[in-house]
């Protein structure tokens, strides 16, 4: 167990920012921490990296306690803060050198690591430039590079892709996968469920300071109500069609709304062929959509609210 958080509580005056959160991370994982703004994600990791003192709870990182082993823990920790934390008046190269030196790197090793981090984040040809002139995406990438120079065992990334262009986002997502393949354990915080779904091996969903669900992607989806939903847009529709479809195996309900037919079946009823056969007898299929449960629907189901509110 690389990280273990037990019954963490943090209160800001009358806001219970983190309410009895427990989670754990195994070596080699990418753990996704998903939740809407204000869910308490940042507060949770701030407590883990020693930036805020929790009101109660226990945190073990690398099996060690922060009180007695602060420097040892810090040495192997890489953090990508939610707000971009780079010096605009130092070049990309100088930024990385400065932060690398804080971890005791020097000489040729420092140089090597800095070049590597720049290469990794695709900033090598910009190393002499000041971040003032960078796009937001490039700043975000430099922000990530700063956390990588000292080759940390555990990398914590707090919303590293907020407010950037799709290309930079893609670059970042790919590099996180690569980092993980190279052996880093990663905690990835986001309120974009697509990202979390794409890269994380395990997911913790937080809302209003509490962990409301955790598990692998599949486990979480299994939490869903066991319904599958098929929506078919037709050239024309009639009500006998609805009756016929209701007779198909596994179908719980079917209704028509204009030219749009919705069929609700039990999970894994494998009746899509039957539905298509019925529908195409009488009219033409314009579009067909099978809705699988996503983390969005998981969240919706668990909280009754959408993630993006």
């Amino acid at each position: 167990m690389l990280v273990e958080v037990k019954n963490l509580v943090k209160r800001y005056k009358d806001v219970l920012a983190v309410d009895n959160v427990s989670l754990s991370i195994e070596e080699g994982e990418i753990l996704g921490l998903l939740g809407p703004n204000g869910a308490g994600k940042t507060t949770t990791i701030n407590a883990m990296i020693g930036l805020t003192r929790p009101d109660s709870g226990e945190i073990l990182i690398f099996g060690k306690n922060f009180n007695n082993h602060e420097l040892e823990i810090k040495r192997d920790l890489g953090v990508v803060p939610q707000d971009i934390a780079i010096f605009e008046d130092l070049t990309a190269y100088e930024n990385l050198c400065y932060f690398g030196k804080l971890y005791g790197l020097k000489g040729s090793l420092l140089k090597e690591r800095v070049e590597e981090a720049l290469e990794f984040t695709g900033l090598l040809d910009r190393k002499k430039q000041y971040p003032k002139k960078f796009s937001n995406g490039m700043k975000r990438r430099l922000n990530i590079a700063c956390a990588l120079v000292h080759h940390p065992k555990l990398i914590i990334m707090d919303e590293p892709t907020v407010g950037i262009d799709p290309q930079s986002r893609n670059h970042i997502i790919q590099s996180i996968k690569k980092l993980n393949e190279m052996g880093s354990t990663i905690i990835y915080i986001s309120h974009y469920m697509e990202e979390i779904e794409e890269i994380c091996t395990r997911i913790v969903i937080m809302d209003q300071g509490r962990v409301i669900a955790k598990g692998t992607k599949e486990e979480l989806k299994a939490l869903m109500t066991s319904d599958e939903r098929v929506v078919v847009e037709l050239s024309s529709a009639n009500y006998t069609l609805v009756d016929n479809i209701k007779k198909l195996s596994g179908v719980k309900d079917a209704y028509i709304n204009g030219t749009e037919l919705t069929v609700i079946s039990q999970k894994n009823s494998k009746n899509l062929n039957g539905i298509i056969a019925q529908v195409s007898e009488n009219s033409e299929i314009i579009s067909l959509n099978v809705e699988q449960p996503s983390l969005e629907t998981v969240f919706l189901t668990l909280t009754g609210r959408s993630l993006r509110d």
Partner: protein
Amino acid sequence: MNVLQIAYYTVLRNIRDWKLFLLLIGAPLVFYLIIANVTTNVNQGINLEKFKLAYFDADGGPTAQQFEGFLQTKEILTAFDIQKVDSLDNGKQMVKDGKIEALIYLKNDFSQSLKQGEKTNIEIFSNKSISATRLLVEGFINTVNTSSAIKKIAGDINVTEVSSGIQQIAISSTGKTFNDADKSAFIGLLEMLSYGALLGCLSVINSMKKNTLLRFNISPINDLAYVSGQFLGNYLTLCPSSGLFIAFTYFIWGSSMQGNILNIILTFLLLTGIITALGMIVGYLTKKTGLGAIISVCLNALLSGAAFVWMMGTAHGFLKWFVFLSPQYYVYVIVADTIFEGFTSRIQVSLISLAMAVTALTAVTLFLGRRKAV
């Protein structure tokens, strides 16, 4: 090792903030050049109209004659147009009519009193208190003071007011000292140097506001190392301005220092530390750029101002007490005493005061910095 690294990057960032840096280095440099130029002009009497002066010697004794002789030397005559008058009333009338700028009056027991070791006065009458007039008369008196003729005067050089039309000039007390122009220039320079407090203040506030502070908090460095590095960095950034000041002081008064330049260097190194610490403390306490800047400037104006009114001999009440908290006051005392062969003990006491201030303020800075950094 970390301290030096942090200091290095602090200096780098301070210098890259080129507007502030220019203000800290460029402004004093320009100011120094102007002052140096003016001071040289005054000394050589170039571009100045000759100063019309009369004297009445009611004494006629040996010292008075020596003094008269002194008035006729080439150096004096290049800057002064000197005439002798035959009565005090005539002289005063000439001052009133504006024919001369000032009248110097040697009383009839002038030489005699000196000989007997009693106090005596040289009296000066003038209509004007504008600085040029005062300066030249005062500079003149100072020159006279340094000459052997007057050196034995035990008493003050007083200014006596006789007629209501004639304004009295206050002339400084005990012989050798800066003249007013030099005092103003000196305090101006000191004040400019003290504005360096802005650097520490802004630098600290800047780094407290920056997200980058988080990176220091999560990295395996000691917070004392972080704050010390910042202090050292800000200190080093201010050193060029202090260097300029030392160079200036040496250029203008170096010949009178008798090799005591080390005193001056030490003084400015200490002052730089005080300024750095004061700025950083204000930064830590205010945490706001605008407020921090205003307080730094006001604090500096107050401390320099206290030193200035003390120098001019016009400090009263609160300020008279306050001056002992003013580092600029101690710097002035050290520089003045070094140049004009003042008391060594007073130089030492002042140096110790400055050293104590640096120690205390640095300790407070590190303490506050450690608390605010986390």
